[in-house]
């Protein structure tokens, strides 16, 4: 059902774009400008040549997976590189068309022709933006279709993407050290040890408390047990697994240890290896539950002469639930929708910077943004959850405040850039992780409406300062 809904969504959008461009609304100047940009893209060969490059690259994907023996590995490679290739080509073409189209209008003097037409001053940029959306869609839709076909070809089944489920990853609450937890811990410690904790400066106490809580929540001592609470709003479905990746300090990678996993009334003993992922199926009794507690008891090393004092959970994905949700295909489609939304922002950015920069500088500007976004996405992939980020406000010197503010600004920019990097989403899809509808809606609201909207408004404002943005002062 989700697959059908996702396919239906694609077709509905395709129909919408076609209908909008060909319907009676075509008399509006905004749609005329959009159609002209599409005609430019096709007749000047940008879209046919870009499309040919895109499809040749996709057609070569099966060559990458010749050495992979497992079907799942082949599928992951094809999806990973396929999405990366599609995102790269489509975003680059969109940015080039965005910058080239407007700069060309200004350099040739056509911008003046457009602006003197009745009522068209405000429709030039939105019209071009709409045309760029249609152009990127005309590449994205067939490319996604081809990727689905190639995925079927390299896998055991043509319907592999429809059959294999995507998983939603759920992290436990204990690993998130929130300010509330810190305050609770501090209050308790001050009661217990007023002479020690009570004398500490408040910010210093917060720093120490955070450090201890973080360490405690991420480790299980030998013979000890930690309980982890998982919440999943729609209820855990059949096939849910607990995935753990323990770190055992200095123990050798091949060293085995024992753990007991308590799920409700049942428990089972498992063998783990240092740094290796292990999966434990969820007890049937817990299926359908929205909140569960899983206890993990560390029993020590298998070999009696080896002493391992504790296991640690290093990274956000060290302990998590894998809940099947929807199919691989639906999550791929959602990921491509996010790519289209990102294209919308890139188009808006390219058009806006082209209103005051020439083609080379405008293109360079957009490319710099894309490189920064790739870096932001790389950093964002290793970022802890936001609640765990702790800022030390122990020193109130002005220079420190400035530095802290700059650091927080940098964090914010990196986190924003991470949302604009398609490769992170593509990597998740390739790994079988679900991309939810709420992520698409959130991307639409943040990237498609908020950021693209703000960027477009900036471009319109520049254009409205008539002599600027028309090339008069170049």
């Amino acid at each position, binding site marked *: 059902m989700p697959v059908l809904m996702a396919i239906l969504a694609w077709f509905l959008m395709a129909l919408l774009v076609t209908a909008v461009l060909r319907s009676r609304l075509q*008399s509006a100047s905004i749609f005329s400008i959009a159609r002209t940009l599409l*005609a430019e893209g096709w007749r000047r060969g940008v879209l046919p040549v870009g499309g040919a490059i895109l499809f040749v690259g996709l057609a070569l994907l099966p060559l990458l997976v010749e050495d992979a023996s497992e079907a799942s590995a082949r599928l992951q490679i094809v999806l990973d590189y396929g999405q990366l290739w599609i995102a790269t080509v489509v975003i680059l073409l969109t940015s080039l068309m965005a910058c080239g189209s407007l700069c060309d209008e200004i350099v040739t*003097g056509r911008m003046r022709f*457009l602006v*003197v037409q009745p009522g068209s001053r405000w429709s030039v940029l939105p019209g071009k933006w709409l045309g760029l959306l249609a152009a990127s869609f005309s590449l994205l839709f067939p490319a996604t279709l081809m990727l689905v076909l190639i995925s079927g070809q390299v896998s055991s089944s043509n319907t592999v993407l429809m059959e294999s489920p995507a998983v939603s990853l759920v992290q436990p609450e204990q690993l998130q050290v929130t300010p509330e937890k810190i305050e609770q811990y501090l209050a308790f410690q001050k009661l217990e040890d007023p002479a020690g904790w009570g004398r500490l400066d408040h910010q210093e106490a917060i720093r120490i408390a955070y450090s201890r809580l973080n360490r405690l929540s991420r480790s299980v001592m030998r013979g000890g047990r930690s309980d982890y609470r998982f919440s999943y709003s729609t209820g855990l479905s059949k096939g849910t697994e607990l995935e753990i990746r323990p770190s055992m300090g200095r123990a050798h990678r091949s060293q085995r240890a024992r753990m007991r996993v308590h799920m409700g009334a049942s428990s089972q003993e498992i063998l783990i290896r240092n740094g290796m992922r292990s999966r434990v199926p969820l007890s049937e009794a817990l299926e359908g539950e929205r909140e569960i507690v899983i206890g993990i008891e560390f029993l020590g090393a298998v070999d009696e002469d080896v002493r391992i004092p504790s296991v640690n959970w290093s990274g956000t994905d060290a302990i998590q639930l894998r809940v099947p949700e929807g199919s691989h295909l639906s999550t791929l489609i959602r990921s491509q929708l996010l790519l289209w939304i990102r294209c919308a922002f890139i188009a808006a950015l390219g058009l806006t910077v082209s209103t005051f920069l020439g083609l080379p500088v405008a293109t360079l500007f957009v490319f710099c943004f894309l490189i920064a976004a790739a870096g932001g996405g790389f950093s964002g992939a290793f970022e802890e959850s936001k609640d765990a980020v702790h800022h030390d406000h122990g020193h109130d010197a002005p220079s420190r405040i400035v530095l802290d503010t700059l650091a927080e600004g940098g964090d914010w920019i990196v986190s924003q850039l991470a949302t604009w990097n398609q490769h992170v989403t593509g990597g998740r899809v390739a790994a079988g992780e679900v991309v939810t509808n709420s992520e698409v809606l959130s991307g639409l609201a943040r990237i498609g409406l908020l950021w693209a909207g703000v960027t477009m408004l900036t471009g319109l404002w520049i254009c409205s300062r008539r002599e600027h943005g028309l090339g*008069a002062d170049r």
Partner: protein
Amino acid sequence: MWLLLPDIRGCQYTPSPGEQGRGVPRVAIDSKFDPEQREVIQVRGLCKTFRDFWLRPRVEALRGIDLSIQSGEVYGLLGPNGSGKSTTIQILLGLLFPSAGSVSVLGTPPGTPQSKNRIGYLPEDSVFYPFLTGAEMLDLSASLGRVPARERKGRVSDLLEMVGLQDAAHREIGDYSKGMQRRIGIAQALIHDPEILILDEPTNGLDPIGVRQVKDWIVSLRKLGKTVLISSHLLADVEQVCDRVSILYGGKVQSSGSIEQILARDDRTLWTTSHPDEAVLATVRQNFEEAGVEVISVDPGSRSLEEMFLETVEEARDSGETTSGAGMGGQLPAFLGGSEGRS
């Protein structure tokens, strides 16, 4: 008869000490200026200074221009390169801001949707999309000009026929000759049936047939009550179609008035007669001399090169010769104001 008048139109530009006493506009007594007629374009003391990135004055393009263009007249804006014609037109179209002075187009500031909807503009250079066909370009102009969808197809067809491009309607503009692109430009300026037509070098790149047709269309548009503002270097063309002209130089109006009056000479009279024999000529010459009238020159009658060219092409067409260029073209389409105004 020329009158020397100091700064007659209240120009806001104050000449520098070095300019005092020179560059004062000469204005002919204007019999065609009718105070009762509606003023569609009014320019008072218009100045425009282009500035660089640091807002330092770079070029003083206009230095106090006054224009008053009435409804239904053909007005010529003349002047050498850099005299301020294009800057004036761009200000009238709302593309540039005036630095000082006031401009009113159809009673509204330039660049407003109300004024732009009633202005048709032919730019100096053909700046149309080379990858669109002629019909698509006109369709685009029609939709930008807010022509209702149900009328667009008809108008596009009528205008293509008018400019003689019906056979090249589905060829890309990039393949058009310069003259054909000019014709498409004229068609796009007319497609939304504007009240005012601003033509920047309208005959630029046209062959003599095209030039003749454009002049005929301008005259027909005047008959339909439309106002036409022409900027041109080709003085002969302007002379034939314009009611009034202004001559710009150095960003100022140097002279303005109706064509007949500014060109009139009270020390010359030109007669055109049928070809007389030598005896008659001798008698006439003798009579003039007795009356104290000096005969400066007597020239044999001759056809103009334009007339000869038009006749030759007409004969070639009649003999069935074909061309890949523009066709003959036709009359103004009916949507521009009815059949009474057709040429």
